[in-house]
């Protein structure tokens, strides 16, 4: 069964070369490693210093949640609330420094549409490159390549280096590749958007089909519309801590309250 379970996970970044100035950096017994918070901002996770002077930023601060098949989770929160860090943790980029995270199912990250493309390679070559890197087998890619070509409507341009493409054409290609495959767990930082108005309605229909095929979707976003259209659950983060997890409308309401309280 496709599932994500997080139990009290932490992601803490050590800051090197940022030793707390008032304290000398010498070897200290473990008892002195107790941490205290030295700074917080309106945005970002808590910054803590051990008595040894080592500075740590808590980007994810003790999160627990469970997701099951059919969950479409939207993550909201201020800049630096830990949205991207949480996504990267789910992808497997960051291993939690503490706590347990278990993920059942293959994770497909949907990263920015243009990264990992080779400007001098043709459209077709880039389809192979990107899909291979995303972990799909030759067989699967071969099955989808016609579909990608057709949907992108790039025709003969697919045999040309992509540096000859306009930015809109690049979006078409990236979008066509990204939405062709069947992910079990789909992780997105901001909803992928697509090109001109004519392309947009087709793109939305295609995105919808892909999300329907997906077991679990997690997307970080700032857009209220995106949340209401695509998600059935929402998570509100603040300073790396979970503020709310539940229905979309309530989460948005809590987000508004939070913003008001802090300003």
């Amino acid at each position, binding site marked *: 069964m496709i599932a994500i379970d997080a139990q009290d996970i932490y992601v803490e*970044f050590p800051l090197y070369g940022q030793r707390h100035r008032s304290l000398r950096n010498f070897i200290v017994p473990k008892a002195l490693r107790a941490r205290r918070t030295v700074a917080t901002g309106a945005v970002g996770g808590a910054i803590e210093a051990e008595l040894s002077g080592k500075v740590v930023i808590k980007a994810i601060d003790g999160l627990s949640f469970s997701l099951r098949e059919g969950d479409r989770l939207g993550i909201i929160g201020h800049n630096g609330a830990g949205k991207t860090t949480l996504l990267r943790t789910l992808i497997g980029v960051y291993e939690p420094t503490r706590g347990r995270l278990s993920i059942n199912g293959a*994770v497909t990250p949907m990263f920015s549409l243009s990264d990992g493309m080779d400007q001098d390679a043709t459209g077709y070559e880039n389809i192979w*490159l990107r899909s291979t890197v995303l972990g799909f087998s030759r067989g699967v890619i071969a099955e989808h390549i016609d579909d990608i070509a057709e949907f992108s409507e790039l025709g003969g341009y697919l045999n040309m280096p992509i540096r000859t493409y306009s930015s809109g054409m690049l979006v078409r290609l990236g979008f066509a590749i990204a939405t062709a495959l069947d992910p079990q767990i789909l992780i997105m930082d901001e909803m992928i958007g697509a090109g001109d108005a004519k392309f947009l309605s087709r793109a939305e229909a295609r995105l919808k089909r892909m999300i329907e095929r997906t077991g679990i979707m997690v997307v970080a976003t700032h857009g209220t519309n995106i949340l209401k259209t695509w998600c059935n659950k929402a998570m509100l983060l603040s300073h790396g801590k979970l503020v709310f997890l539940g229905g979309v409308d309530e989460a948005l309401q809590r987000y508004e309250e939070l913003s008001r309280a802090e300003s």
Partner: protein
Amino acid sequence: MLDLTLSQVFKAKTDIAASARKWRVWHMLAWQEIRQRYRRSTFGPFWLTLSMGVQIAVMGVVVSSLFGQEFHKALPYVALGFIFWNMISGIVNDGAMSFVGANNWILQINLPLGTYVFQKIWSNTIAMAHNLAIFVVLVFIYRIYSFSFLLFVLMLPLVLVSLAWAPLLLAIVSTRFRDLPAIVTNSFSLLFWLTPIVYRPEQLGPRAFIVELNPLTHMLALLRDPLLGQMPSVVNLEWVCATAIVGWTITFPFYARFRGRIAYWL
């Protein structure tokens, strides 16, 4: 010393095995890396070969007159010396940048980290294969075929295994300490003179032991000797196997311990 947990060891093992299975990915990335450099140039990757060829021709002349050797004997020796040195130093130098150079990828997608190290090893192996064209030309000019060529096919994987821990180890440390790649590059320009690439160890007389203590000497011999029609010596084999064992014994626990930290350091 190293706080290692069983699960870290297991994950590191899985990571390396999964990276090896992902050969399509690193094969593709390695080719892309080479092609990108020479895209839209007429000779493409053969520019690598061309510049190496010129270097070898010049060094061949210098070395044969310097050491009073016959040109046709010095040339294949120097040629193979350069070709394999280029591969070995490339693997270690590029390899040290495996994670730092791929940070954009590492932070966005979930490929096992070993993939990026395999990529660097493979791109340098591909470059070496291109450069071997120079040797093929020499083989036809001087008619130096031998059955021992077949041994080369066995020695190459062995040398790659005994070398591969170095780029992995350096890549991990380089992520945390960004001065390391520069140190590696400098060390290799020193090591160039401590490895019998253009000269022969015998020519050092009583000081030959210096190069004998350099594992790279033995790796080079294992690759070069079969192509010069000689059997590699048992001493060379022992050194290379020992390097592999010692290197991996250090590197694997190190990787297991710090693999999870690499993304944090990027």
